[in-house]
């Protein structure tokens, strides 16, 4: 397990922002580095706990394999769905073209 590093550097902020598809301006990058470091410094206290034999909890209610009847039903009308879109075209969602990446 990697050692927890509380200080978030500028480069890490930019890397995480890219992963999150968030564009941050210069001021936001600086501010975010400081704020995330402060929050993670607090969070790092859980590093002191002995947790190796403790199972993780992802869900609190004891449920498994909840199934509903497999009955066909109509989908949302395509026009209604597309009416919510910023740029519908030809019965689909139009987006700017992806750039070729080599």
């Amino acid at each position, binding site marked *: *397990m990697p050692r*927890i590093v509380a200080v978030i550097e500028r480069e890490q902020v930019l890397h995480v922002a890219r992963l*999150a598809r968030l564009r941050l301006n210069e001021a936001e990058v600086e501010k975010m580095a400081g704020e995330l470091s402060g929050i993670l410094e607090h969070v790092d206290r859980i590093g002191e706990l002995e947790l190796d034999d403790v199972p993780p909890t992802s869900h609190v209610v004891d449920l498994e394999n*909840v199934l509903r009847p497999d009955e066909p039903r109509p989908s*949302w009308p395509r026009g209604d769905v597309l009416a919510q879109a*910023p740029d519908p075209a030809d019965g689909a969602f139009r987006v*700017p073209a*992806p750039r070729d990446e080599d």
Partner: protein
Amino acid sequence: MAELLELSVAAATGKIAGGEISRAEYFDAWRDAAGGDELNAYLWRAEEDSAGGEGPLGGIPVAVKDLFCTEGVVTTAGSRILEGHRPLYTATAVRRLGEAGAGVLGKTNMDEFAMGSSNENSAYGPVLNPHDRGRVPGGSSGGSAAVVAGGLAPCAIGTDTGGSIRQPAALCGIVGLKPTYGAISRYGMIAFASSLDQCGPLTRDVTDAALLLEAMQGQDPCDSTSVGIEGGIRAPRGEDLSGLRFAVPAELAHDAIEPGVRAAFEATLKRIEELGGEIAETPLPHAEHGISAYYVIAPAEASSNLARYDGVRYGMRIENEGDVVEMYEATRAAGFGDEVKRRIMLGTYALSSGYYEAYYGRAQRVRTKIAADFAAAFDRFDFVVTPTSPSVAFGLGEKTDDPLAMYMNDFFTVPMSLAGIPAISIPAGRAEPEGGGPELPVGFQIAAPAFAEQGMLDAAYVLEQALDG
């Protein structure tokens, strides 16, 4: 007119069903009241009476947090990115209220995507606390708490991920209930942290909270994690608290709590003893790590849930000369506020390669420990009680520059959320804020084992009657 607005929801349904007051008269009286909103608590208000049906809530207007999808009615989750968004369907909780005879009075302001404890993170401006307009109402269901406390709605619903119903209820001096995870369907609730989000009522008294909970709870095929409350919920009752055991976390003695809040809490414990309840300390050693675990788990889930806002299928889009990725980045940069960006960053970091086990994995293990602490307490006690919030309502702008200080507002409410258990906040005295000034409401939190809402409501009802007297 004024007397109509004084009626509790339970009393009003009786008078409406008995023909003493007409549905339209009652609904319109509340529409007029809502129209006088000076707290920035509503984002949308009904233009006509929509409470058509018969049922246990026949004729009752309900204020609905803007996190719930309402078909054809603008639903923004307090975010710029969903400005003007009209959902194609209605959330199950809201639909069920309608089936019980209620109608939507308005959509209430909130922290953006339910991320916040002061309502200052709304893209549509902060909500003001009706007790002191220079102070926050709490959050994230700040609008729902403010409309009930401010006489702008007879009752409201909100959502609670780490305290977002209980804390604003406490700061506004009303009742707020977070049910057991799974009691009410999450279908149509705009997702923040899916393993924690739960819908619940904000009301003027405990009886009304029970009424709304019963209308909304139940299994829903559209939410596979919903199970409902077996046997349902009846009106709370009880004369005293004899035979009931209340646990106070032993660690509470060292926790940072405003002196006035601590005094009000201790006075309430005394009332519990006078009513025949037993009080003892019990250790909840991992509760203090609740904030750490929560501020990893909730942002991690949020970073995944909020990936859907990409300017493609709904909501706003910022077009530029760039490719599709640049469109995503520009749209999200312009559409999300500071706190949402902070949590997306925090969550993405915690889930990123190399850090997943150190943060998310460990936080999930802490979650197990916190749930085990509660389970051990409930072996010996019926309830765990704490102040709902470490402070009374604080000033607008007081904590906006310090995210961690803001997160500490959730100190007493987050552990129950992580354990998935129900908890209710009821008004219990008032206290002078730190730094002086007129006294403000204090909330008292009662937590119970999973699906033990009925016993929790009964105890809260007895205590409420005693504190009122």
